[in-house]
């Protein structure tokens, strides 16, 4: 009742009516509706709207972090694969190097061995040959002495008509050969 009367006076007399925000007659109804509406809003937000929006946001965050984790895991796997590949490559290289080194060493050793054997053989042959040469030379030298003595004897006999003694000829030949 009071509300209606003040409104009527407010509308009819204008300035004489109380300023609407300070009109205490409307307070009860405003508070009643405010309480009703605000409590409804609070309950709707609390129980329905906010859990739903929060759920959407959480779900998205989880999805993003899950995707990031998966990407990180996949990257880890590919990194592992690259590391394994590089390790295999390095191993293979090292093994190839080792095999090459071994082969080269073995071949060098074999070559050394062969050369040494050949050298030994050649040395033996050389020594034989030198021995033969020395023997031949000795023999030849003794033959030369005999020939020289004979020739000396013949020359002397022809020159003086007398055969010199063997000892004198030998001494003379030896003396000459010594020079």
């Amino acid at each position, binding site marked *: *009742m*009071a*509300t*209606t009367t003040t*409104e009527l006076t*407010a*509308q009819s007399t*204008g300035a004489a009516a109380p*300023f*609407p*925000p*300070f*009109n205490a007659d*409307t*307070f*009860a*109804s*405003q*508070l*009643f*509706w*405010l*309480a009703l*509406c*605000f409590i*409804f*809003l*609070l309950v*709707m*937000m*609390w129980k*329905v*709207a*906010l859990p*739903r*929006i*929060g*759920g*959407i*946001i959480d*779900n*998205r965050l989880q*999805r993003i972090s899950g995707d990031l984790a998966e990407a990180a895991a996949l990257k880890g796997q590919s990194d592992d694969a690259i590391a394994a590949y590089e390790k295999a490559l390095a191993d293979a290289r090292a093994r190839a190097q080792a095999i090459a080194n071994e082969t080269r060493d073995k071949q060098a050793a074999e070559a050394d061995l062969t050369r040494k054997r050949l050298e030994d053989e050649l040395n033996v042959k050389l020594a034989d040959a030198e021995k033969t040469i020395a023997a031949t030379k000795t023999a030849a030298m003794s033959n030369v002495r005999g020939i020289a003595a004979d020739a000396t004897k013949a020359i002397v006999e022809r020159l003086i008509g007398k055969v010199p003694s063997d000892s004198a000829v030998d001494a003379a030949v030896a003396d000459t050969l010594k020079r």
Partner: protein
Amino acid sequence: MADPIKQFQIVDLFPIAKIGNTDIAFTNSAAFMVLAVGGITTFLLATTRRREVVPGRMQSIAELSYEFVANTLQTTAGKEGMKFFPFVFSLFMFILIANLIGLIPYAFTITSHIVVTLALSMSVFLTVLIYGFWKNGLHFFNLFVPKGVPLYILPLIVFIEVLSFISRPVSHSVRLFANLLAGHITLKVFAGFITLLGSLGIAGIIGATLPLALVVAFFALELLVAFLQAYVFAILTCIYINDAIHPGH
């Protein structure tokens, strides 16, 4: 010239009940409260109905409002403050939408009535008071005793702290009420000048462009104020809630 106060008049649309000596009628204020609350609820529920991981524009608005209030609350009151998230969110959205609806011509502005803003700020005040005592017991009085204050001025400080605590709901509610009330009166007064000048002939119509331009500029400012006052109300609520959770300064 139209009465700039008339827009705040509360009109009974139809009576509902009578409690004691007071009539509880469905008023224009009640209608706009129902509109605001219904609008908020419908919007938030309709836009998030499909729960899309990649949100559309409307769902983004709903999520944006959620994250905006959640961040504000979390930065001021910490993780524990999130208990009050539905409350702060409801306050913010209710005031924001009520302010914005009030800017529509011929609409009623719920928040331009002191009893509404005072009731909202009292709900915050009582929440802080009850939760503060329930959680901290008598340690809640630490709120009024700042640390590191010399003993001889401590009684004065405590007196000032208590006074400022008690005056919180008043400043909290009057700030919102006065901003909205003053803004709407100014808009109405300038708009009244347009029609007043416009009725004076050609020169008046040319002269009326000035108040028209002012109304346009003022309307933009009022849009900002509508958002800002809702934000200020919400952030003060967060700060007060923080006091209830951590009463030691």
